[in-house]
């Protein structure tokens, strides 16, 4: 029988136990804090557990039908009318017990494809459209990505249900029409048109090879062109739909026929305001359709309580369809409606509600003061809102939804931070938001505390208590570091300190520019924060750093596919400096070609698929009459370069430097040979596990054992070892600086972004063994500042020292995940320890930390018996997800993470 790596190492006296700071107690430990939501939210959450991800053709059908009838209309107006048609034809469904109504589609977890963006990826694999997507590299990531097989994922056909894109179910009777709608977009979608023009970029063939080899994960321009941003609810909260329509009409009168000194896009303002009116009217009709449905249900309902609830829903929707909200409930419903309207307008992941507790504060404060509501009612509503957010599904390809997102949608709610004048911004409503999230554990919205030493201790301890439920939220984000990044990146567009303090996190961990908006309610004035920037994580997504190293070692040829990716560099790599220099050269070449091609794709997107509703919500589009495509937003320097596999790259460079260049224990050729044959181990896919420890040796192949041992025991990141930390610092300083050399389509500099999301699984699957001893096909280290599983042996503070050897303000983010055994932080003493640990990392300048409070044995048991763990959630990398909906490569990686038994 084949030996596992863990056995091989044990025989050599090395432990791969993945525990640090002690040993786990013998008995499996559950989480200390466990709560229950209110009965209503519990029932709605149970329904969610039973619901399948379901797709419908309704929205794409009506959008396409209208769009094709509007040939030659001005693009923004054509799009607005098509969106209006689609919104106003959505079937309204309200389920018994719901307090907050409306959804993306008529299914509980409903979503739909947007073939005007891309139409090939959800076809059957035999279909020529799917084959075409594979040929140009846009579906390659799909081939190495995996979904979890449980929960609501529809991974196979059954009955009258067809599985599409490996996750979503669609009714058989809808499928032919869906395909017909998709085919109407062949040659017209953003994907197809973008591809036509991106081929004109010199060196395009490198881009295609990069995508086919999964050196880069995906193109954002036609997959998820928006998101990773903070929404802005302000204008509709303050003025209501009628108010905004009236405002747009007045603006139309002011700008019609007048360029006002702008001969290029000044005239467009008329069409943009016209488009704004159409989309606002479309969403009004959509809301009123739900109100009508509530009235219908009210009329037929026999139960007086339920009857009253339908009546309340109808009244609430009828009011907010026209006016600004009067109560906390109306304001909450309106925010939810705006949120899903934006999500229906475009393919989006990571649309964050921002600092929702501060946005809704005026209504909360006044309702509580007037006795119109109670804190119990507010908590119930917030718990119901959590279930609604968790029902959001994002329809995209297997590579994107499975490989990048793990099925998550990243609606990140920020808490705390500072006010405009620099004092703590947290409030009582934010405490109730934490309370609701502790009671009603769901994946959305995830929470992030904008950590500042000025935040009160009780608030922070409340956040820690929530972490102890094992939800993985809230994450802690360094407010000071984020503000410094914003000032650097958006200073040229006018960002000042007081405005930078409005910061919130967009998507899982993207620092996003926001602004303070003056809100008036019942004669009282407030400043509420809201997003004011374009999507902050679009552009070059994600570059696999270990794969770049593989290509350097093998002169530009992908060892998995045998295909050439980069032109041969021809270097002998005789020195470490030459090697590192070539890593930078290949990386820079990849960024260059990907930035150029992505600029084109995003340009086609903004020309033909411009977001109108989301644009008019963001300052200062309504005032200046320009949408996102004409840089109407206050902040537009939002494109980035994302990377994956930082720890594996750094560890590999350290191993090469030590073994090959310093100690000269093996030659580079000998090491390359060992990498090619995977150090004598089987492929991870063959083993069926993607964790290093589980990998199995091929029988009778022992000649690479010594070298593998050297690689595994070479210095590793995360141990306060200057030998490795110097490599990390050199990499970070160079990488964060070089991004500014590339210009986005908005003529602004790119910046660095360092989160893995789930890409470390498919990108690991596409990469052979690496010099740090990692084996072929196994998952990379998560995040960017997390250590590789089992290699951080000197405790958390050593890890923090390594992680903060560079200035995190230079990057949009960095990411650190830590797994802690529940027994290590028991009781109030344990809570204070966890808070001190967090504080320590923040004070050293670390940007972000999040915790999995779990006994790894529970995860192993859940992997064996998934049916018994439908509600188990874990933190992956910037998001919390249901265990059963995560693919096995990520499950294996989360299990393998170092478990801290003491902090």
């Amino acid at each position, binding site marked *: 029988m084949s030996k596992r790596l863990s056995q091989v190492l044990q025989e050599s006296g090395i432990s791969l136990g993945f525990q640090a700071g002690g040993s786990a107690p013998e008995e499996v430990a559950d989480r200390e804090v466990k709560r229950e939501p209110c009965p209503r939210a519990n029932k709605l959450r149970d329904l969610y557990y039973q619901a399948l991800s379901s797709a419908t053709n*309704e929205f794409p059908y009506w959008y396409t*039908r209208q769009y094709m009838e509007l040939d030659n209309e001005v693009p923004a107006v054509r799009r607005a009318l098509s969106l209006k048609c689609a919104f106003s034809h959505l079937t309204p469904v309200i389920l018994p017990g719901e307090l907050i109504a409306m959804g993306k589609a008529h299914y509980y977890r409903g979503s739909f494809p947007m073939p005007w963006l891309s139409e090939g990826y959800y076809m059957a694999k035999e279909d020529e459209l799917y084959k075409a997507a594979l040929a140009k590299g846009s579906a390659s990531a799909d081939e190495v990505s995996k979904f979890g097989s449980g929960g609501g994922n529809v991974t196979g056909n059954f009955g*009258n249900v067809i599985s599409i894109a490996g996750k979503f*179910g669609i009714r058989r009777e809808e499928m032919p*029409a869906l395909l017909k709608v998709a085919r109407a977009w062949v040659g017209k979608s953003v994907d197809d048109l973008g591809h036509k023009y991106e081929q004109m970029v010199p060196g395009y063939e490198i881009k295609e090879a990069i995508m086919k080899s999964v050196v880069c994960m995906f193109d954002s321009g036609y997959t998820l062109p928006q998101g990773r941003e903070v929404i802005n609810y302000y204008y509709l909260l303050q003025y209501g739909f009628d108010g905004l329509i009236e405002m747009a009409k007045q603006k139309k009168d002011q700008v019609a026929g007048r360029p006002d000194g702008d001969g290029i896009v000044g005239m467009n303002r008329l069409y943009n305001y016209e488009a704004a009116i159409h989309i606002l009217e479309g969403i009004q009709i959509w809301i009123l359709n739900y109100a009508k449905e509530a009235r219908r249900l009210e009329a037929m309902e026999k139960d007086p309580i339920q009857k009253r609830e339908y009546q309340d829903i109808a009244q609430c929707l009828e009011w907010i369809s026209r006016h600004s909200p009067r109560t906390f409930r109306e304001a909450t419903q309106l925010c939810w409606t705006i949120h899903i309207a934006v999500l229906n307008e475009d393919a989006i992941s990571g649309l964050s509600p921002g600092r929702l507790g501060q946005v809704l504060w005026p209504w909360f404060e006044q309702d509580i003061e007037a006795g119109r509501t109670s804190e119990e009612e507010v908590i119930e509503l917030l718990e119901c809102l959590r279930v609604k957010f968790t029902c959001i599904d994002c329809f995209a390809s297997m590579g994107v939804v499975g490989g990048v997102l793990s099925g998550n949608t990243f609606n990140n709610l920020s808490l705390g931070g500072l006010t405009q004048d620099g004092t703590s911004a947290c409030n009582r409503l934010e405490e109730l938001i934490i309370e609701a999230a502790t009671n009603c554990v769901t994946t959305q919205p995830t929470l992030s505390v904008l950590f500042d030493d000025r935040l009160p201790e009780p608030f922070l301890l409340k956040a820690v208590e929530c972490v102890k439920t094992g939800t993985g939220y809230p994450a802690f984000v360094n407010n000071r570091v984020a503000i410094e990044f914003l000032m650097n990146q958006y200073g040229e567009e006018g960002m000042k300190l007081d405005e930078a303090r409005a910061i919130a996190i967009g998507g899982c961990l993207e620092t996003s520019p926001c602004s303070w908006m003056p809100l008036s309610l019942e004669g009282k004035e407030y400043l509420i924060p809201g997003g004011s920037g374009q999507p902050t994580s679009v552009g070059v997504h994600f570059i696999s750093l270990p794969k770049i190293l593989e290509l350097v070692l093998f002169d530009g040829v992908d060892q998995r596919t045998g295909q050439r990716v980069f032109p041969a560099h021809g270097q002998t790599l005789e020195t470490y400096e030459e090697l590192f220099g070539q890593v930078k050269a290949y990386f820079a070449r990849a960024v260059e070609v990907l930035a150029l091609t992505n600029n084109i794709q995003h340009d086609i997107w903004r020309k033909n698929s411009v977001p109108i509703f989301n644009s008019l919500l963001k300052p200062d589009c309504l005032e200046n009459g320009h949408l996102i495509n004409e840089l109407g937003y206050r902040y537009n320097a939002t494109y980035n370069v994302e990377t994956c596999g930082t720890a594996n790259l750094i560890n590999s460079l350290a191993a090469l430097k030590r073994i090959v260049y310093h100690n000269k224990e093996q030659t580079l050729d000998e090491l390359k040979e060992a990498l090619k044959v995977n150090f004598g181990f089987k492929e991870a896919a063959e083993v069926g596990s993607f964790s290093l420890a589980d990998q199995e040796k091929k029988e009778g192949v022992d000649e690479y054992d010594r070298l593998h041992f050297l690689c595994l025991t070479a210095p590793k990141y995360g141990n306060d070892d200057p030998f490795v930390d110097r490599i990390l610092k050199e990499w970070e300083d160079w990488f964060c600086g070089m991004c500014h050399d590339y210009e986005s389509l908005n003529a602004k500099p790119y910046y660095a972004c360092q989160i893995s999301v789930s890409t470390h699984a498919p990108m690991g699957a596409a990469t052979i063994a690496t010099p740090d001893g990692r084996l072929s096909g196994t998952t990379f280290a998560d995040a960017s500042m997390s250590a590789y599983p089992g290699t951080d042996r000197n405790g958390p503070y050593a890890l923090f020292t390594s992680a903060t050897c560079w200035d995190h303000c230079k990057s949009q983010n960095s990411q650190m995940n830590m797994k802690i055994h529940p027994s290590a932080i028991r009781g109030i003493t344990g809570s204070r320890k966890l808070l001190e640990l967090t504080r320590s990392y923040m004070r050293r300048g670390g940007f972000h930390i999040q915790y999995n409070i779990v006994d790894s044995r529970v995860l192993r048991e859940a992997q064996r018996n998934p049916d018994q763990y439908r509600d188990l959630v874990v933190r992956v990398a910037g998001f919390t997800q249901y265990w059963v909906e995560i693919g096995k490569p990520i499950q294996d990686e989360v299990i393998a993470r170092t478990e801290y038994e003491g902090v």
Partner: protein
Amino acid sequence: MEQEFTHLDCRNYAPVDVAKGICHVKKEIVLADGESCESFEKLPKCKFCKNYAPGEGEYIGTCEASKTRPMTYPDLIGVTCDFFAWQEN
């Protein structure tokens, strides 16, 4: 022969997902493809609309209410469609 309807064709059926939904009358979860019951009330769908004309294959037709006669499909729900009109039979 009288046409057989499933829950999917019923106005009282609130879909939860592609396989099941909640019956607003009985307040219980029912299967989408389950046979309709005595509370059945026909849901406006293209296949029940007098403007619907069958087209190529079982699942594609056209909407005759629009001048351009666009493609449509029998199970498209029509509760929000201004063109919807019940077939006379």
